[in-house]
């Protein structure tokens, strides 16, 4: 008993030393259970966000204003599916099945990003989602690409390469609308107004109210706090809004030449927690869409299994 406890302590000390030395932890390495469960929680939330994130944009595929925009949007939404799969695959290396992760999403046990519970009311929302939401995701994921867990970091590197396309195509939509007719510019401004604050919230609760941050920072899963990421996103985005002649809906937004950062107004955290708890504008609709997709795809999965059983007996015995 005593011997076992010592061994665990020694393992733990060795693990912490590896983290402190900046080493990458791989699936088969010893890790504290808490590190494993925290990573499963964080990575699966991230994967779910990619999958649910297909829904707000999927809403506009049939109504894209041109064939070019439709092709781009299709490719982008397909990328989000791919991103979900990269991260599910990384999460599975921690010893949990994807079926279980999907089940946690469909039963409402697992969370996903609050941002995807807002509705996409106009075509300009496709632009703002790419610009703000993918822009914020890039800020977050660029740092996560240095996370201590190898499969997560590698998934992030792969994703970051693709997100830049997402952000640029979104910004291009907005830039095009902003120099279009007065109605088009107004549509772009309206989308900016609706998405700005939820995009800031998307980077997570303030550091003073984020119970997991300290631990995840110590384990080098996170390398920057939510507030640091938010500041970085704001600093990057304000000049981009200026460049297309749109304003951000925050009267307190101003550049501080001493700190070289933008100051911004108070975030409505009540709204954030309401959305996280399931009371956002689209929470029920999003989950129902995922459940329907899962149910409606059942016959496809069954057919594929029947086909596989019938046609590839060798592969079955090998697997």
């Amino acid at each position: 008993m005593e011997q076992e406890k010592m061994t665990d302590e020694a393992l733990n000390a060795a693990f912490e030393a590896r983290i402190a030395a900046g080493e990458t932890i791989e699936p088969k390495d010893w890790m504290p259970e808490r590190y494993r469960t925290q990573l499963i929680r964080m990575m699966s939330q991230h994967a779910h966000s990619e999958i649910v994130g297909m829904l707000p944009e999927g809403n506009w595929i049939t109504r894209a204003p041109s064939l070019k925009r439709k092709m781009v949007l299709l490719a982008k939404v397909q990328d989000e599916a791919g991103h979900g799969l990269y991260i599910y695959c990384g999460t599975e290396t921690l010893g949990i099945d994807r079926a279980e992760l999907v089940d946690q999403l469909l039963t409402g046990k697992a969370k996903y990003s609050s941002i995807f519970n807002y509705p996409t009311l106009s075509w300009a929302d496709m632009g703002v989602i790419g610009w703000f939401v993918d822009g914020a995701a890039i800020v977050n994921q660029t740092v996560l690409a240095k996370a201590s867990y190898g499969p997560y970091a590698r998934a992030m590197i792969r994703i970051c390469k693709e997100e830049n396309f997402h952000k640029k195509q979104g910004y291009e939509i907005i830039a095009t609308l902003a120099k279009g007719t007065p109605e088009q510019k107004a549509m772009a401004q309206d989308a900016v107004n609706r998405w700005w604050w939820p995009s800031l919230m998307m980077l997570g609760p303030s550091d003073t109210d984020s119970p997991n941050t300290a631990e995840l920072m110590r384990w080098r899963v996170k390398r920057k706090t939510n507030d640091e990421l938010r500041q970085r996103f704001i600093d990057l985005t304000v000049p981009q809004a200026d460049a297309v002649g749109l304003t951000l809906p925050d009267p307190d937004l101003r550049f501080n030449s001493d700190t070289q950062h933008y100051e911004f107004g108070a975030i409505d955290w009540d709204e954030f927690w309401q959305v996280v708890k399931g009371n956002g504008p689209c929470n029920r609709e999003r989950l129902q869409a995922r459940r329907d997709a899962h149910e409606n795809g059942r016959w496809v999965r069954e057919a594929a299994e029947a086909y596989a059983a019938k046609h590839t007996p060798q592969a079955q015995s090998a697997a």
Partner: protein
Amino acid sequence: MASSASVGAGYEDSSVPEEKSETQWPLWEVFTQRANGEPHEHAGSVHAADAEMALQNARDVYGRRGSVVSMWVVPSNVITASPSDNAGPFFDPGAEKIYRHPQFYKIPRGLKGF
């Protein structure tokens, strides 16, 4: 000596299910070659009912941008990986034979282009 755990599954040795449940197809590890002459490298994994579907899924997930010229898919549970708990002893023999490296040998000074 060697553990039978798949490279994709670190937690349990047999986390790849033999029986396919309703939603869980077997796991396949994906290796991609980026250009002719380059090695195949591990890209990630996919779930698929059979090899053909694994290859198609792998193409859609890991080869969407034309950066892949060849792809392998391998059932995850047939991969045998080196042990992780005592990786030291397993690989030590490779480290202790320093005479395998050219730096081990002295040559006369002043000799150029050896």
